């Protein structure tokens, strides 16, 4: 979507909806369960109710009469619902009440009420099972909302009483959320707000600004994953909450408009359809993998233009105070103490992390015993010991030694050789620039020479990919603490330390600290393996928390000027 065009983009979004509904209408025979192959009947019923919901919402959200494509869809829905082979399943398949009730709700909302269909629903609802079997909270909200739209009476607890049990209302950590959890959140908002038509009775401790922040954080992650289905669902949620003028909303529209194909279809994420469903039928596969996302995109455009959907100023983002000082200090103490019992050549990164974090904390003395010990044990180390760890590690170790006035002859020799070799280079690649500055900080090369080397190589290839926040969910699921630490460090360096995604990733890391101060839960019983893993994880997390601590501006003493 070209947001640089005059106007607010509403005509472009209207065009997105028109194209999407036209594409759905042209394939409306595919939502007919009677026409579906045996293995596709349930899928057709699911698509039928979702299409019906879109049409029903169109009737509610826009006072104008339905246009041709919406009318064609409604006619198809009415024709299917009129058949006994469809509607009488309500009495036989009570566990799937919602799959049928939504169809009736749409007909009712569009002024095509059907008393016999209504009686079937009312009987099932009163039958002691269909509305009574235990559902997870957001499905309970789905039930309540559907019964409300159907006008079917019930004596179930109200939505306000269910909301406190939902994931949305319990301050979820965004980096831990699987796709199904995000759907739980989006659907909770759909039902609670009645698709933007009411203010829900939120629990007393619910903070709308936190919910908006959560949705915008999820947009960042799902946009990174290029998941149009979830992007559209989350965009709908922001619109249901009245938020339409934010940077994240603008980015979401831009992405969805670009993702829409010329015919109107919007492709869904991989994996939503069982591979066996299409069974080599490409046209069916094309529809099955795109119809849901296309419906949600159309709904977003509908919510955007509806005069009935409430609008509000975007609530200010919360500004929680982030402090990692205490856990960082405890981890530094453990890492320093544990590293000393190991080979200094292998544990050099841990010692460097200790030195780096002690300086960030303004408590250089935390690193002194370890630095003294390692400098003595590495006094005659071969050049390869330093070479293999790289400048980031060796540089931080050297800064630590310098802060305490400690010398290490083998390191001095190595640095002299390296500086001489660097002097022979004509340029350095971009990913080495930071480490060249470390050489400057140690007084090993002149600032002007470093600047010339970096400038000459600025157009070179970046061989190291930038970390992506979208990788956080997978890293959490797979317990890759080092990977999480790397992403958080990059975010903190990029000025995003207060972003909800970064804060939640930090919160995740902090919950992995044990009482001894180490990070990570190895979930194994071998003491040697446990210690090796905890050393690796703690080194990574300590490095990251030091960056976070500095970025939060809470260093007890100003760090010395260095790269």
């Amino acid at each position, binding site marked *: 979507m070209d947001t640089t065009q005059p106007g607010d983009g509403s005509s472009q979004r209207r065009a997105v909806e028109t194209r999407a509904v036209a594409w759905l209408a042209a394939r409306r025979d595919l939502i007919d369960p009677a026409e579906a192959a*045996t*293995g*596709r*009947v*349930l*899928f057709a019923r*699911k698509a039928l109710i979702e299409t019906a919901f879109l049409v029903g919402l169109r009737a509610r959200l826009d006072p104008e009469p339905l246009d041709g494509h919406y009318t064609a869809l409604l006619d198809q829905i009415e024709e299917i619902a009129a058949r006994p082979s469809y509607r009488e*399943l309500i009495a*036989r*398949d009570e566990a*799937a009440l*919602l*799959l049928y009730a939504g169809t009736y709700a749409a007909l009712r909302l569009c002024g095509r009420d059907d008393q016999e269909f209504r009686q079937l629903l009312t009987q099932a609802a009163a039958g002691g099972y269909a509305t009574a079997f235990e*559902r997870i909270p957001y*499905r309970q909200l789905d039930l309540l909302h559907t019964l409300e739209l159907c006008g079917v009476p019930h004596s179930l607890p109200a939505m306000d009483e269910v909301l406190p049990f939902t994931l949305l209302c319990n301050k979820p950590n965004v980096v831990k959320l699987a796709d*199904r959890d995000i*759907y739980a959140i989006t659907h909770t908002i759909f039902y609670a707000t009645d698709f933007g038509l009411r203010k829900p009775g939120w629990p007393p401790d619910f903070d709308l600004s936190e919910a908006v922040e959560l949705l915008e954080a999820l947009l960042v992650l799902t946009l990174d994953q290029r998941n149009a289905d979830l992007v559209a669902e989350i965009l709908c949620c922001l619109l249901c909450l009245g938020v339409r003028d934010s940077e994240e909303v603008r980015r979401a529209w831009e992405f969805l408009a670009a993702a829409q194909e010329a015919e109107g279809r919007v492709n869904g994420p991989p994996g939503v359809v*069982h591979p066996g*469903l299409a069974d080599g039928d490409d046209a069916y596969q094309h529809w099955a993998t795109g119809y849901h996302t296309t419906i949600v995109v159309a709904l977003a455009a509908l919510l955007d233009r509806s005069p009935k959907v409430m609008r509000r100023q975007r609530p200010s983002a919360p500004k929680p105070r982030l402090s990692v000082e205490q856990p960082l200090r405890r981890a530094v103490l453990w890492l320093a103490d544990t590293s000393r019992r190991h080979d200094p050549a292998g544990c050099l*990164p841990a010692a460097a*992390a200790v030195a*780096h974090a002690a300086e960030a904390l303004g408590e250089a003395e935390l690193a002194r015993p370890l630095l003294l010990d390692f400098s003595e044990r590495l006094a005659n180390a071969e*050049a390869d010991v330093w*070479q*293999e*760890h*790289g*400048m*980031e*590690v*060796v540089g*931080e170790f050297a800064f630590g030694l310098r802060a305490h006035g400690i010398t290490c002859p083998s390191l001095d020799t190595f640095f002299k*050789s*390296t500086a*001489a*070799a*660097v002097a*022979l*280079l004509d340029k*350095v*690649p971009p*990913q*080495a620039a930071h*480490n*060249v500055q470390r050489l400057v900080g140690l007084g090993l090369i002149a600032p002007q020479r470093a600047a010339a080397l970096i400038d000459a190589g600025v157009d070179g290839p970046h*061989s*190291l990919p930038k970390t992506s926040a979208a990788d956080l969910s997978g890293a959490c*699921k*797979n*317990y890759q603490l*080092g*990977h999480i630490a*790397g992403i958080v460090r990059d975010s903190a360096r990029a000025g995003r330390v207060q972003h909800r995604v970064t804060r939640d990733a930090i919160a995740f890391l902090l919950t992995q600290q044990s009482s001894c101060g180490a990070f990570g839960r*190895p*979930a194994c019983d071998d003491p040697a393996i446990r210690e090796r893993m905890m050393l*690796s*994880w703690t*080194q*990574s997390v300590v490095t*990251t928390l030091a960056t976070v601590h500095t970025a939060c501006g809470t260093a007890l003493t100003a760090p010395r000027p260095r790269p």
Partner: protein
Amino acid sequence: MSCPPPPVDARKALDFLRTSGLVDLRVPLEQVVEQVSQLDDVAGYVLAWERYVLVVANQVAECDDGAAGN
């Protein structure tokens, strides 16, 4: 008289400058992943309903067709 070449050559110096290691990106133990990945199966009683409504798996469809007679 020419100077001896430095023990660190230009290639090694570049490698040294490019290497980062303060954050360890290795996965120290694969079995951690293997252990927790089983939890989804344990939680199947919750996920079954979600598959039924949100993401219809073929197997579920087949079971349902048999039950509903459609």
